[in-house]
Every structure is written in structure tokens, then in C-alpha cells.
């Protein structure tokens, strides 16, 4: 493509190029980068601190819930008196098995609806 630019203007633009103080400008950029890094570090520190505090506050209720779940999960759904049958069906005759089946069902349903 031909671009018929005026050579006199080209020469004027070339003459207008100024040598500028590069050290001061570079220093200003480096200071801004350092400031940005410090700010990011401060933000992450605050985030981590808040995270630790939330964990500390929630630790007790979370452990209580886990302990309750541990007690509840092996409970049989149907009371079977025959010893060998109770043992045979124990993998599926429990709150844990029902929960797992429920979770699997929900997972499949969600996949069917969204997939």
C-alpha cells in the first residue's frame, strides 16, 4: 500500500523527538510496582488472617457435626434380627448407604438436567 506522507512533516516529527530523563521515569514505575506488590501482599495477609479466624470460629461446630455424622452413619435403616442377614445387608442397610445413594441420584439428576 502506498502512503504518500509529506517528507517535510516526517522530518519535523523526527526533530520533535526529545531525549527525556529516563531514570526518574523508570524509578516512578518501579515504585508503583513495589507499591502494588505491597498492597497485594497486605490483601493476601488480611485474607489469610480472616480465613484462619473463620476456621477457628467454625472449628467447634464443624467437629460436633462430624462427630454426630460418625455416630449416625452406621445406624441401620431397618432392624433385622437374624444375625447373618443383618451382617450381609449392612453395607446397604445404613444411613451412610442411603446418603450415598441419595447423593448419587442427585448427581445423575443434575447431569441429566444440565447435560
Amino acid at each position, binding site marked *: 500500500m502506498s*502512503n504518500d506522507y509529506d517528507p517535510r512533516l516526517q522530518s519535523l516529527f523526527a526533530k520533535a523527538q526529545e531525549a527525556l530523563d*529516563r531514570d526518574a*521515569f523508570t524509578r516512578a514505575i518501579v515504585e508503583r510496582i513495589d507499591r502494588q506488590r505491597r498492597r497485594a501482599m497486605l490483601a493476601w495477609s488480611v485474607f489469610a488472617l480472616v480465613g484462619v479466624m473463620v476456621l477457628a470460629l467454625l472449628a467447634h461446630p464443624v467437629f460436633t457435626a462430624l462427630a454426630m455424622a460418625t455416630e449416625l452413619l452406621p445406624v441401620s435403616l431397618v432392624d433385622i434380627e437374624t444375625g447373618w442377614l443383618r451382617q450381609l445387608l449392612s453395607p446397604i442397610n445404613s444411613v451412610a448407604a442411603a446418603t450415598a445413594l441419595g447423593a448419587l441420584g442427585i448427581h445423575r439428576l443434575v447431569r441429566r438436567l444440565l447435560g
Partner: protein
Amino acid sequence: MRYSADLLAKSPEPVLVGLARTGNRDAFAEIVRRRQTWIRNLMRRCCRDATLADDLSQQVFMQAWRTIRQLHDAERFAPWLKRMAINTWLQHKRRGDPLRNADEHGENDSAARPANDVALDLDRALSMLADDVRLCIVLAYNEGMTHAEIAEFTGFPLGTIKSHIRRGSQRLQKELAAYMEQRGTAT
């Protein structure tokens, strides 16, 4: 890892870009040292006010620092930076922020005046052009870009660019007639 200033000063730009992409601040500072005159002069031609031009140039380099990981080809750093500078200028004009009218204020601010008389007269003549015309003229004459390249960088239609450059050149020739004659008689 820290490298000596001497070593960085001798390193080719793609190497510095590679280091800057890993978060090396000193390598990026060396890139700024090498490229700042170019970007600052480009911004000065666009906005006439040296203080505003330096502020926008800082924005360009800070954006470059934040996004340098997205630059996959280190050899393409210069056009990538130029595109960023043009976008920064276009965004500044679109935003219409308080510094937008700095062109008028800059005239009375001695600190913001270019030291070079040619630059002063050229910037005064450029400030008489409409924003888009000025940008096309600066990219054509200051950056030596073709019409097609300007179209690609700015998103303006090719026909508009041709017309902007033709009208802008005529206006500059008129405003800078003294320089045009000097050169005419000198050659």
C-alpha cells in the same frame, strides 16, 4: 533471582521480556528504561501536555507489567506495547476524565512545556486537529505506520484514516508553514 544491572543492560529485549514474564521487576525496569522515550514522545504528540503524557505512559507500563504473561511471543513486545499505548489514549479520550482538557491548561504550565521548539510548535499545531485526526497523523508521521496498520490498531475504517491523514497533513502544512518553507529552501 536477581541479575546485575550491567547484565540486564546488555541483554536483548526478548530475554528481558522472558524474565519480566516470570515476575522479575529489574528486567521490567530495564525494558521501561529502553522504551520510555518512545512511548512518552508518542503520548506527548497525542495529548500535548507533558505531565498528562507521562501519567498515561506510566499507565501503559503498569498495564504492561500486569499483563506481560499474556504476551506469548517475546519478539512482538514493541507492537504489543504500542497497541497498549494507543488503547490507553483512546480510553482516556472516551472516559472524558478531568485531565481531558489538560491541552488548554498545559500551555501555561512551564514544567509541562517541551524543551524543544520544534516539539512545542508541532504540538501546538497538532492540538488544533480533532482527536481522531490527530491520532491518525501521529501514528502515520511519528510511528511511520501505514494506513492499513493504523486501521488495524485503532479500528477506524480505512477510508476514514486516509481522509483524516490527508486533511490533517494539509492543516499541519498550513500551521507549520514557516518550517515547510525553511525546509523547502534548504533542499
